[in-house]
């Protein structure tokens, strides 16, 4: 019984390097259903993750943990200069060192280096210590060239050329014009204008980028790699190793964070593969912390010089903005204004600015947290200028019914009415002041296409395996796919095991753009449905019973109307090898977009400028929920990363040296235990939801804006640039002079 029939065309979102992009695709025209919420036993239940045991005992093996007999350690020499030309490379001293097995130049004499951290040469050695010694023994002569690492400087006409004149420092990022901005501003009751800026961040994955490559004696290769895409990585490794795709396996059973920066082998993967091949031994090459911070991706800066207007009713009437940002030698695009508002009159132009810094990468909701801060800060200022409560102002301008409800729910949870400060910056009873702020979010939520598969295998001992070539970034993929299968077959979840994290498993997509769940869950659901059908057909044949007489009962037993067989007894009747069934992704099991509203309550010390977030409230929808507990964890994580964006995290690029000054974890400040406020997650669950959505990215988007708006509400300090440091708060309060160093 095949479930695949005719096809239809639908619009969906697919990640292109982690950025969700709308495309039209052809899919099987089948209506499938998650059923009613309260009929679902495991799907949605707040169950602990299945790999929790391995992770709390140290058993879980990450790429970094793979140790193989005869394994060598790879390392990469990186440019200390932001811009230079290589005059010569002398590897002889490194090659002569005992324990060094291979040294080669990644870039040859004459090559241009475009950022500090650019790869120059590679080493494979018997130990990490020897590899490090050998890097220091490589002699490189450079012609050091003028560099620029600040976007404001790079935009100037006399700025050093990032690409040596091959292309300009600034590229057009597109523009949007609708309506008559000048006329609208002319008739506006209220306008605000200014410049809002966000910093660059690094992903700071705790497990750095890297791989272990092992060629086998039969010409095949095994590759362990810390990736958000086992299948995508296999395609890329096959290409760069010139191996047939079927001759290699990419494995990623556990990975220590990606956040958008790990979609392929990267230079380090290519280097690792070449070292392994040339040494004839397995090689492990994991980036060190500086290499990770300088070369493995970052989230671009975003700056807007903008003007916003409102009419007498408190409706936003027009936005004009000149937006730019830098993603180093990579792209730096972001949308402005952020898509939570429908603005009739717009005049926005965007520029990508190149600088001599490592290339940017997608980072959890690429461009959106920046865009949200730039937009929602301006909107908040407009509300204040209109003399309207910022929450009331949002409700006036909000067009999504869903978010209006969410704003009201969140406002009640944070205690907006009691806590909103009617006179920010005035009437303070002491140096410590409190206030609240809010911001909204939206995200596509969809994903998947008709190429995506999953497999369900039922063995004669009653054990069930759900296999899909996806990866678990800590998001819980490995866990919830079991729930789907157990529910579909009606069996106890203890029978079901997951197999993921290998390119040998049925094809699935990259984990980017929040597309994993809407890609994986429907495929697994369809595979389980097919397995159920195949199981009944096989059982009917084995028991010489008519198919239509057989029914699967809750608990997995099978009835023919007269007697019942238990799940394990029924499985014993299956032919040798049991059942192997595949399913293909189905559009009717997916829904989007999703919405959220966030609130922050902060405390500001007006004498020291210190901001302390006391409480965060998030109201978030997300279609059919796969696992309430793991979703809540992920939402917590989004808010905490948003808090880091708001208050602590900043890549500091020094124009004098051209280097990142804080390529480590003590000066690049991730939020630690003491920064964590009370967090209240309210799942805006729709009992009638018919499809799954991806929720990973939405929660990180509005947190910084909500915190920044709360800082103003508490203290009257309007900090227009992230992160909100004590110095910036004091400057905004007029207590110290603003530090212009960052704007050069």
């Amino acid at each position, binding site marked *: 019984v095949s479930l695949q029939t005719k096809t239809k065309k639908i619009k969906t979102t697919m990640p292109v390097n982690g950025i969700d992009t709308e495309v039209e695709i052809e899919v099987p025209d089948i209506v499938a259903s998650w059923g009613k919420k309260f009929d679902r036993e495991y799907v949605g239940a*707040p169950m602990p993750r299945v790999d*929790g045991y391995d992770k*709390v005992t140290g058993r879980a093996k*990450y790429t970094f943990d793979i140790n193989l007999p005869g394994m060598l350690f790879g390392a990469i020499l990186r440019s200390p200069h932001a811009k230079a030309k290589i005059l010569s490379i002398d590897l002889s001293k490194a090659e002569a060192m005992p324990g060094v097995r291979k040294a080669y130049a990644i870039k040859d004499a004459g090559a241009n280096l475009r950022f500090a951290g650019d790869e120059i040469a590679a080493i494979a050695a018997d130990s990490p210590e020897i590899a490090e010694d050998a890097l220091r023994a490589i002699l490189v002569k450079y012609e050091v060239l003028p560099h620029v690492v600040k976007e404001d400087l790079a935009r100037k006409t006399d700025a050093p050329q990032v690409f040596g004149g091959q292309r300009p420092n600034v590229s057009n990022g597109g523009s949007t014009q609708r309506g008559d901005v000048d006329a609208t501003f002319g008739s506006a009751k209220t306008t605000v204008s200014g410049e809002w800026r966000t910093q660059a961040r690094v992903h700071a994955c*705790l497990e750095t980028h890297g791989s272990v490559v092992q060629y086998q004696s039969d010409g095949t290769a095994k590759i362990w790699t810390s990736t958000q895409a086992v299948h995508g990585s296999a395609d890329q490794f096959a290409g760069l190793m010139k191996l047939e795709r079927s001759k290699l396996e990419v494995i990623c059973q556990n990975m220590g964070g990606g956040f958008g920066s790990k979609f392929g082998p990267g230079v380090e993967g290519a280097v690792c593969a070449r070292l392994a091949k040339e040494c004839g031994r397995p090689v492990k090459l994991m980036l060190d912390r500086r290499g990770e911070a300088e070369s493995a991706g970052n989230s671009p800066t975003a700056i807007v010089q903008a003007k916003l207007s409102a009419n007498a009713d408190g409706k936003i009437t027009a936005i004009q903005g000149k937006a730019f940002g830098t993603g180093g030698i990579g792209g730096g695009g972001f949308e402005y204004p952020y898509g939570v508002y429908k603005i009739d009159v717009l005049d926005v132009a965007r520029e990508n600015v190149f600088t001599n810094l490592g290339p940017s990468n997608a980072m959890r909701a690429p461009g959106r947290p920046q865009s949200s801060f730039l937009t929602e800060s301006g909107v908040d200022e407009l509300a204040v200028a209109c003399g309207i409560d910022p929450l009331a102002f949002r409700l006036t301008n909000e067009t999504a019914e869903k978010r209006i409800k969410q704003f009201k729910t969140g406002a009640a949870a944070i205690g907006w009415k009691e806590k909103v400060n009617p006179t920010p910056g005035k009437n303070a009873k002491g140096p410590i002041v409190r206030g609240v702020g809010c911001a909204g979010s939206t995200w596509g939520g969809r994903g998947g296409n008709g190429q995506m598969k999953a497999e369900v295998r039922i063995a004669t001992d009653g054990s069930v395996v759900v296999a899909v070539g996806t990866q678990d970034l800590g998001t819980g993929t490995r866990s919830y796919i079991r729930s789907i299968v157990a529910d579909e077959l009606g069996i106890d979840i203890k029978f079901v095991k997951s197999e993921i994290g290998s390119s040998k498993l049925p094809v699935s997509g990259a984990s980017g753009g929040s597309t994993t769940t809407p890609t994986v869950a429907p495929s697994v659901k369809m595979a389980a449905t097919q397995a159920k059908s195949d199981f009944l057909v096989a059982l009917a044949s084995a028991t010489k019973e008519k198919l239509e007489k057989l029914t699967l009962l809750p608990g997995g037993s099978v009835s023919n109307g007269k007697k019942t067989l238990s799940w394990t007894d029924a499985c014993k009747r299956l032919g040798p090898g049991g059942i192997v069934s595949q399913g293909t992704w189905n559009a009717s099991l997916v829904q989007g977009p999703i919405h959220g509203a966030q609130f922050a309550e902060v405390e500001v010390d007006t004498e020291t400028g210190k901001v302390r977030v006391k409480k965060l409230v998030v109201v978030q929808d997300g279609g059919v929920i796969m696992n309430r507990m793991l979703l809540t964890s992920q939402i917590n994580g989004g808010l905490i990363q948003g808090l880091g964006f708001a208050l602590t995290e900043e890549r500091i690029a020094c124009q004098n040296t051209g280097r990142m000054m804080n390529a480590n*974890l003590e000066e690049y400040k991730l939020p630690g235990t003491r920064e964590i406020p009370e967090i209240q997650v309210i799942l805006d669950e729709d009992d009638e939801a018919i499809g799954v959505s991806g929720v990973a990215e939405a929660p990180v988007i509005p947190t910084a804006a909500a915190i920044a708006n709360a800082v103003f509400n508490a203290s009257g300090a309007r900090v227009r640039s992230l992160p909100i440091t004590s110095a910036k708060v004091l400057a905004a309060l007029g207590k110290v002079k603003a530090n212009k160093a960052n704007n050069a």
Partner: protein
Amino acid sequence: MATKNDNEKQVSRRGFLQGIGGTLAATAVGVGGVADATEAEAASSLPTLSGSVPVALTVNGKKVAATVDLRRTLLEMLRTDLDLTGTKKVCDRGACGACTVVLNGKTVFSCTTLAIDADGATVETIEGLEKNGKLHPIQDAFIRHDALMCGFCTPGFLISCKNLLDHNAKPSLEQIKEACCGNLCRCGAYPNIFDAVLTASGQETMANAKQVMASAKKDGAK
């Protein structure tokens, strides 16, 4: 911590400082003009610390030994020589706590502890928390409260939390934050980590987690 190999392990202060100087010279190259390659050449000809020494210690109650590079950290010895990879290498300079182990009863960053300094010591790692097939209550609580996502910081947090509970049976939320302030989590599992420690010490958790746990239907964990 005297052993029979003391002589081999002695590092001359001069050689050490020269080694450091070489590193600085190699990285502090000029910003403008043609960099002076003689600096790099000088760096490569400087004496570096090398040689191997035997190190013996007790890890999780088991006597283990390995011959390691003089400069090898305890972290690298655990992970590479002993294949105890539960202890993670993240910042490699004592900033993030992922490499936290218990050394002679005190938590230390194993990435900034030399293996030779741990000679003769008693070390407890994440692999030793489970005893006779039974999880330590803090491990169990981490699973039940989902106090982890990617799991890379988890071993370090567990060691810090376990050590806290060894010294303080009922820590307050502030004390939990204090005990783990040397541990960083990038995924943002902090709220659930706090709840896990509160639960493991028989205390009320924060409201949010309770709300989630109250409706738990089934337990999918082992």
